[in-house]
């Protein structure tokens, strides 16, 4: 894991090549996080993967999060791993909620990391985050005709009402 100063050095290097793409950094609980411009997340991931001396070539995990009521509300986390230096780095892209029925959008990174295919579909399935350029962005775990984005924080935890015949007969 890059430590606090290491993270700032990394930010400086990225800024030299891709000015203004890193919006913020955070270093907490021994975890280094780069918060980047969601419109250019592919550039950052490409840079981290291909720049000599960086080599974050393994995408461990991709997850989405909903920070409601904070704004911007959604985030996509890329847990990158440098297997040579045994370092983890999280790249975080914050996405605003476009409101109403519109869905937040971000570029897909499947071409860079083929492993993201299922994971981006999962994020789409549960959070309704659209990954532009994904080869087959469909629901993966939920049924195809499901309506709603259940992992969002404003989606209630609840079940479907089960009608028992006993209740129906006696109290229905």
């Amino acid at each position, binding site marked *: 894991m890059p430590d606090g100063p290491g993270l700032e050095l990394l930010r400086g290097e990225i800024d030299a090549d891709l000015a203004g793409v890193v919006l913020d950094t955070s270093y907490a*609980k021994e975890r280094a996080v780069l918060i980047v411009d969601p419109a250019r997340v592919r550039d950052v991931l490409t840079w981290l993967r291909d720049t000599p001396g960086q080599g974050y*070539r393994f995408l*461990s*995990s991709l*997850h989405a*999060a909903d920070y409601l009521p904070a704004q911007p509300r959604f985030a996509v986390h890329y847990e990158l791993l440098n297997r040579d230096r045994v370092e983890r780095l999280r790249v975080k892209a914050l996405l605003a909620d476009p409101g109403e029925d519109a869905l937040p959008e971000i570029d897909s990174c499947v071409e860079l990391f083929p*492993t993201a295919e299922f994971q981006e579909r999962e994020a789409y399935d549960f959070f309704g985050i659209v990954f532009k350029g994904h080869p087959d962005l469909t629901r993966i*775990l939920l049924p195809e005709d499901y309506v709603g984005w259940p992992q969002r924080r404003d989606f209630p*935890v609840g079940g479907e009402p089960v009608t028992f015949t006993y209740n129906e007969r006696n109290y229905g």
Partner: protein
Amino acid sequence: MAELTEPRTEVMTVNIGPHHPATHGVLRLIVDLEGEVVQDLKPVIGYVHTGIEKSCEDKSYWKVIPFVERMDYVSYFFQMEAFCGAVERLIELEIPPRAKYLRTIFLELNRIHSHLVWLGTTALDLGAISMLWYCFRERDKILDLFEMAAGQRMHTRYFQVGGVIEDIPLGFEAKCRAFAEEMPIRVGQYEDLLDRNEVFLQRTKGTGIVSRERLLELGVSGPLLRAAGEPWDLRKAFDYLAYPELDFKIPVGTVGDNYDRYRVRVAEMVESARIVAQCLDALPEGPFIADDRKYVLPPRSELSTSMESLIHHFKLVTEGYRVDPGEVYYSIESPRGELGCMVLADGSAKPARVHFRDPSFVNLQAFRDMAVDGYVADMIASLGMLDPILGGVDR
């Protein structure tokens, strides 16, 4: 006449599953076949999706543990460790050395257990029915050990945030040590049954090969990656639990075919048995759970004498503890690869998001590469060697 004698090929799309004994769970495969050769393949998942991650958002932290155990129902200790470890890192709670060793013992026993289930069912798919009985005989001994320590054979809820719920009982050590000594002998017997079995060799050697580079691109980890010759194991790479203090090897394969996958897992069982024996030898004395009353239940005996303890107990059981806002991704080496847990805390007593990076889910993406251009029969062998647990895939 010429068109009559020309071989006719047509592509047939076959649906396999979701209820099929060879898919090791409710996995559905849509396979394009040309004769007996697989042209294309698409796994369809989600049949046992139960919304565990969403349910976790509605439970206080300590109540999440039994939920996450039920994701990957063969390696439940690993799910517990991933979640408890992530929460411990969020609240910056150090667990005592004895707890680290106890957790390591149970994780490694669980790794053997998981590999035994894999070996038994996969060998069954390949026609070696007796393997199932032998593997499940040893598995039962591991379940006996779990029952002895935790009171449950499966889904033990043994790990807690801060350590483990109870110390191991008297007699556990001897029984566990006997098992760790016996296991390598049993593994030798399995190898005797399979290693020179012509049918098994024909079915596994040279089938389902995927290159190391492609596996890395696809994010595959664990025994599948090691079978292709990449010595990557989180137990060695990262410092967690008692692993830095233990002496064990990482078995790797060379070709990356189904036979190597079998060899790697079988060798891992022996290494895990060695780890268990070493942990028992080096098991430190002392508390088995952290002494932090903000997060850890007070001992039962104090409740009748100490008002303070009673208050702590009441608070922990009713509301649970609050965790300051933050997010942590913690990953461990499960029997299937990198098992990661992301916990997002929003300051309340319930997690705002619990997300698992399940190795079966990610590894399943490599299945198309393993099966295409091979026979249907090899596809079944590859699926067994991939070892997906659909409870973990679908969550």
